[in-house]
């Protein structure tokens, strides 16, 4: 083995990268470039307490200032505004109410999982999660596994699927056994 064989090895290893140019960095760039707006969704929530899943429909709203809103039309009209670590509930005819969770340390991670993915904020995602990307530009799956103990008490895993800069689904597996899958409509 000489100098040449080492060089050859290096070239061989970098071939896949050269071929697709797909990876976390391009994904994040693509996500960040996606304009804000409202995307229709359908969510199914499975709970060990329930005989049938809860189904809700509505719109996922991304404001230009980074706020994330979940506006439900079914089963009843209600909007959740999600801040960096709290959730505000607006029901028609009621004053806004803030939801807080006692196990707060994990909540920031949970919210970051949604917000930072939508915003293509890799630094924030990596602070809270181990990231694993599979697939290619035309169909990818990003798996987020929480790093710290507080978040692990709340979340087993968050799986995001998408195509280019568009997210097609979020699947949240909670430590409690609840699983919710949100499917997002196209642009």
């Amino acid at each position, binding site marked *: 083995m000489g100098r040449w064989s080492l060089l050859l090895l290096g070239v061989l290893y970098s071939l896949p990268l050269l071929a697709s140019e797909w990876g976390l960095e391009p994904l994040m760039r693509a996500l960040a470039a996606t304009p804000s707006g409202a995307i229709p969704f359908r969510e199914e*929530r499975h709970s060990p*307490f*329930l005989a049938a899943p*809860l189904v809700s429909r509505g719109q996922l709203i991304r404001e230009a200032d980074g706020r994330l809103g979940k506006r439900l039309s079914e089963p009843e009209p209600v909007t959740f505004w999600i801040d960096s670590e709290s959730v505000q509930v607006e029901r028609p005819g009621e004053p806004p109410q803030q*939801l807080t969770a006692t196990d707060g340390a994990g909540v*920031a991670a949970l919210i970051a999982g949604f917000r930072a993915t939508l915003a293509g904020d890799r630094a924030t995602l990596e602070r809270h999660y181990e990231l694993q990307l599979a697939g290619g530009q035309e169909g990818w799956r990003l798996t987020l596994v929480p790093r710290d103990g507080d978040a692990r008490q709340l979340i087993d895993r968050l799986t995001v699927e998408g195509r280019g800069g568009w997210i097609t689904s979020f699947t949240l597996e909670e430590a409690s056994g609840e699983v919710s899958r949100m499917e997002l409509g196209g642009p």
Partner: protein
Amino acid sequence: MRRQRLGLALLLAGLMVWVVLRAPPPTADLTQFLPHGATEAQQLLVGELRESPVARLLLARIRLSTPSPGEDDGARLAAASRALAALARQLPAAGSVLNGDQLLSPETTGLLFRYRYLLTDPAHHLDEAALRQALQQRLRELAAPLGPPDRQRLPADPTAALRDYGVGLLGRNGPQRRYGVWFNRAGNGALLLIESRLPAFDLDAQAPFVHTLQQRFQALPEAVGCELTLTGPVPFALESRSRIQGQVGLLSAIASLGVALLLLLLFRSWAVVLLAALPLLAAVVVGMAAVVVAFGAIHGITLAFGITLLGIAVDYPIHLFSHARGRTLEAAAAAIWPTLLLGGITSAIGFSALLLSGFGGLAQLGLFAIAGIGAALAATRWLLPALLPHFATPAITPLGSRWMGARWGGRGVWVALLALLATLYLISRGAGLWEVELAHLSPISAERKAEDGQLRQELGAPDARHLLVITAADQETALERAEQLGPALAALIANGAIAGYQSPAQLLPSRATQRARQAHLPAAEQLAERLQRASAGLPFKAGLFAPFLADVAASRQLPPLTQEVLVGTPLALRLEALLRVREGGALALLPLIGVAQPQALAQLGDGRPWLHRVDLAAASAELVNDYRDEALRLVALGLLVTVLLLWGVLREGRRVVRVVLPPLATVLVTAALLSVGGVRLSLFHLSALLLLIGLGLDYALFFDRPDPPAERAATRGALLICNLSTLLVFGLLAGAAAPVLRAIGLTLAIGAPIGLIFAALVAHNSRPSPETRPDIS
């Protein structure tokens, strides 16, 4: 003779120092300065001041002093908040510590969970409609992002029974929570509530607690780049004290130096400078010893004000040295002794009225001053001559005769007229003369007070001012009465009069209430049937709520929860603070939160003789005003006795008037001048005016001495030096930032020169004939 005297003095000094050193250190418990309770409300107040959970509450905020780019600021603050809470909980002096995180341990939560249907009202006794509504609400929560933290308990607790438990008391409904801990509204500060278990007004006990908290926090790795702000009655009291002490220390050092220089300049003797301090020193030691023997311990305030009153002792050695021209100190002492003694006795009588006071603190002050004056007199008369048997004073008489010549005298009518004018003015000022707002006397800045108000509001912490107190024969009755008050308080919240309240019954319902709740719980079959109908059409799994059915059945058999069961939990600490069982009865304290309409509280008392409304600010203002009025009355009484005594000694109406008019006029004119200048008089001004009477009496008595001309010049020179040194010391105090010190300083800086001038104006107009006039070259 001389040796005997020195030996005796040494022995006495040793004895006194022994007494003082053996005594407990000066106490800082302010409640000693409150009266020993005439009315029940005042007694409650004294107790409240001593033990109130609100007074012992520290409000804490952590903010970042250095933001860290790239790091999550909120997460850093939350970590610092958790670390501070953990360290505070380790301190033995800490009561409950709340930061929004992990309010209760899993064991305590488990205990409460077992008793949940006794501790809170099961909605409509778990009828079908209430169950249906609860189940629909749980379903909504399951669908929402971030379900409530207790949702894992759904099968056993579909009505979420514990959510309303201890609202307000356990910091629920408190500030917003971020990263699992409390944050301020702006989101840039983590908030905590730390309760101290030490008596609120025992500052000596509180100081190490607060300092330990601050120091250990600074040392925490989580606290790097964070700053801790503490507010509340305890930190504020400590800040006032250290500010005042710091200023007193600096100013008295400067003043001592100034007086020493003045004495050195005039007497050109180091011995004089050093020994001039001896009578004051003796006065302080003997005063302390007397108070310690009589009261067991001396209060810090007695010491502080007492030393002000003893300012008069500085004058004694000046008189002595000034009269020692051409003769020994022993001879000089003998010559001025009658005047000194009379002045001392009259001052002591003025202060002795304080001894009769019902206020422990005032009585201490009176004894301290009397014993101190006695000691200073004795030291001047016998000790100084024994220490400096061969002392000779340089000539200082020109000073006396040049500035204080007899030409001034005989103008008593003018002084009386001024005094009359001042009196009329003071009467016209009426109530506006006095400072009623105690807060104005506090050296705490307006910004700090605003900070406290904001933290209090954001934390939902009780008002430091308003409190309801329930008296009862026993704990059970106290709890029942607290519960009985519930609907009336809820009405006050509904119409915005108050924002909330805390009550021991929120933590521990009375036994009667617990039994009533038990009695209303449905039987097992009945509940199963209701649940069946209530959950029809909802997607819950079949049989999911079996644990709920079992728990309700078990709750029907539980013995009521008692305080003993809670021992060892954080709840016991909270309960202890709000519910006290003591000799002859029980007390329940209900601190009020965000009182917007204090007048609306009045109606609560109707038909409830066991309910006491305490407005701490108004009540303590009233206390201090009582204290002031009592002091005024007693001093007037003392003056009357003084006049009688002077009558007995001087035996001549004119002389009595000449001695009494100047100090009286001085006090009146000084008070009027202060008032004209926009100063509202407080207790502190009053103590300064007391000293002014003492000084003024001395001045007048010395002016009244039927001395030969040379002696007269020495007397007046001495008076001028006395006056200058008083002016120097208190003029410096007048520049202090602390209102208390400024009040005392300003009063004496204005009053002392007036006192001397008035004494000179009133003095007997016996112009020395030209041939006996002293050489004034």
